[in-house]
């Protein structure tokens, strides 16, 4: 008897669908492309572009099954480009400044990140 709210919520427009697909096709660390800004973009331009994309992609606004993932990508991109220090690091290395492991999502050789410590509590085999 209760209709879940979601079924009555607005679906997504073609534009919203295309935007989700565009974001999802981009490499996760290609922050400038994700946020649709030039490498020389000012702080304000970056912010404006992020806000505009957020309005289109946020799952509250966009019911596309991948909208949440797409939003997480732009939020991550904004977190880096919206912060002077992180943006600097990224501009120089091309890597996610928050990732303490290997660079650029590469998997080889990074090993377990001992900086993060190990888990306790688990029992070794008797």
């Amino acid at each position, binding site marked *: 008897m209760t209709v879940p*709210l979601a079924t009555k919520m607005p679906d997504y427009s073609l534009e919203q669908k295309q935007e989700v697909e565009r974001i999802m096709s981009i490499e996760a660390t290609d922050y400038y492309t994700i946020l649709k800004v030039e490498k020389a973009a000012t702080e304000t331009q970056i912010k404006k572009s992020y806000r505009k994309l957020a309005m289109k992609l946020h799952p509250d606004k966009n019911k596309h099954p991948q909208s949440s993932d797409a939003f997480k990508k732009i939020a991550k991109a904004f977190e880096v480009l919206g912060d002077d220090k992180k943006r600097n690091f990224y501009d120089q290395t091309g890597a996610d400044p928050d990732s303490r*492991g290997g660079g650029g999502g590469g998997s080889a050789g990074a090993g377990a990140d001992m900086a993060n410590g190990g888990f306790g509590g688990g029992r070794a085999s008797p």
Partner: protein
Amino acid sequence: MFSITFRQSLRTTGSTCRIPRLPRLSLPIRRFYASGSTIKAAVHKPVKVIGIDLGTTNSAVAVVEGEMPRILENSQGDRTTPSIVAFTTRGDVLVGATAKRQAVVNSENTFYATKRLIGRKFEDDEVQNDISHLSYKVVKHENGDAWLQTTVGENLSYSPSQIGGFVLKEMKHVAETNLNSEAKNAVITVPAYFNDSQRQATKTAGELVGLNVVRIVNEPTAASLAYGMNQKKNGLLAVYDLGGGTFDISVLDIDDGVFEVRSTNGDTHLGGEDFDNVLVKYIVGKFKDSQKGDEDITKNRMAMQRIKEAAEKAKIALSHVHKTRIQIPFIVKDENIDFELAESELDEMTMHLIKKTMEPLKKAISDADLKRSDIDEVIMVGGMTRMPRIRRMVGDFFNKKPNTEVNPDEAVAIGAAIQGAVLSGEVKDVLLLDVTPLTLGIETYGGLFSPLIPRNTTVPCKIQTTYSTAVDGQNSIDVNVYQGERPLVRDNKLIGKFKLTDIPPKPKGVPKIQVSFDIDADGIIKVSALDKDSGKRASITVFGKTGMSQAEVEQLVKQSKKTTKEDQMTLNYLKHVNNLELIVFDSEQAINDWSRFILEEEKESLGRKLSIVKRMISDSRSGDLFDVKLIKAAQVELKDETMEIIQNAGQRSRDARKKVQSHEPN
């Protein structure tokens, strides 16, 4: 890949671990549907989402209609409803003003400020500290949570969620009466600084009464929506929210309809109640200084309740005038409380509380990477912000006069309604980007807290980190998920745990365990762990979850169903019955106090009347008697007769004293 799911706020759809809801219609709705002719119109209406501000002392409900939000009035015509729930000896539940009115005669079963206990453990310092101020009994539930115990019936105990549920149900009812349609979906607000279990418990409260809680929204964030809808101004906004029980500060960046929370901070146990408690203590001290008798007034629940009410009243008055009189006649026997209190005195005695809000304020500003002077506008929310000293302090802090355009009591509910309309698609050009208020992380070796998602991260978000084992040959790991800002997990709040087993034994530090945290827009947190080398699926056991088990929730739903009665007529009637009982108490007390000077025949006559009236009271409560006129008449008759007897007794006592004096040698 294994994952567990625990939710920070209620999902809109989905099939996993959903707590069953009660498809229950309240009375007017049943009538509404029975009328038939209007049912068609109801079906074609778009989905309405109401916004509920479930406050510590007062609650409010609002809805957006035609892009305009408005507060819905309750049946008494009030725009807010006291968050008070009382249980009568008859097994009825009173909510709101009716519950508040009978608090003096039924203080042990009148539950107020329970939001301060929601989602908390009995052993928490805050709970232990509150117990000394509360007129009702707080007990430890099997799961360690703080619950509330009544003295009526079989001494039933209730969780703070259930009490919240009764209030939510009342607000749902208010909405339905106003909208003339069922209000099923709701956005409910919580203090921004609430942790996961407090949010969970609030959501449970909604589910208990059959609400579909589509989102839990932070109170200051909601207030910013109310402000922003009105102002349409871009810029940096600080929301200072000091309510009945909690303090929040949020900093938002508003830009073309996007409300981005930059940071949030607060104290989930600081609010008007604390100010009241300080004043109660002061009044008690003042009384004791001049007390003639030796009764310990703090042991007298009824007297303490009256003092509490007087304290709250005086505090509110001092927001508008510089001086007020605290007058409580006959607080014990023939002694009164009567003195003047100045605003400056109140300021001074509560200064430590006002100052307590400054630290979170500074933290919020620095977390947002801002300076105080960057803030374009400051809004004040919550009843306590009417206190002039608080306004001055905040004004001085920001070097800017706070904006007073939003209504401190209504802004939160209005904002919740706006967010509801955003979620239903009714409001299109607004987007709220909220954050996680507390850092999320896991326990690593030695009880250290390893943060994964820092506080003030915009949701939805996903973060992955690689960990390893701490011991050679370790073949399993415990993933304990905590929320908090302290470096040791024992100082933070455990919100969930699971075990990753069957890791191939290797030297310590070699296995690569990838842990990901994923929070969606509804605040649902998913934590998963993966052994990258083996990629092997091992079993996961979720050991526990904060809050209540499903069976427990079902039990509670049943219980609330049984004990709730929302017939306004009955409530009203019982209010009169309670008043009558109060008069009975007064009469008995008076006979007792003046016993020496009352004639036997007077005692007999009044005694007869009292026993009849008592019978009427118990019959009314058992449902055998329902006659408002009779009860009202009994009130008048009993009052008059007692008054007369006391006057006679007074005369006799004066005569007796004269006699004694005239016989005394000079």
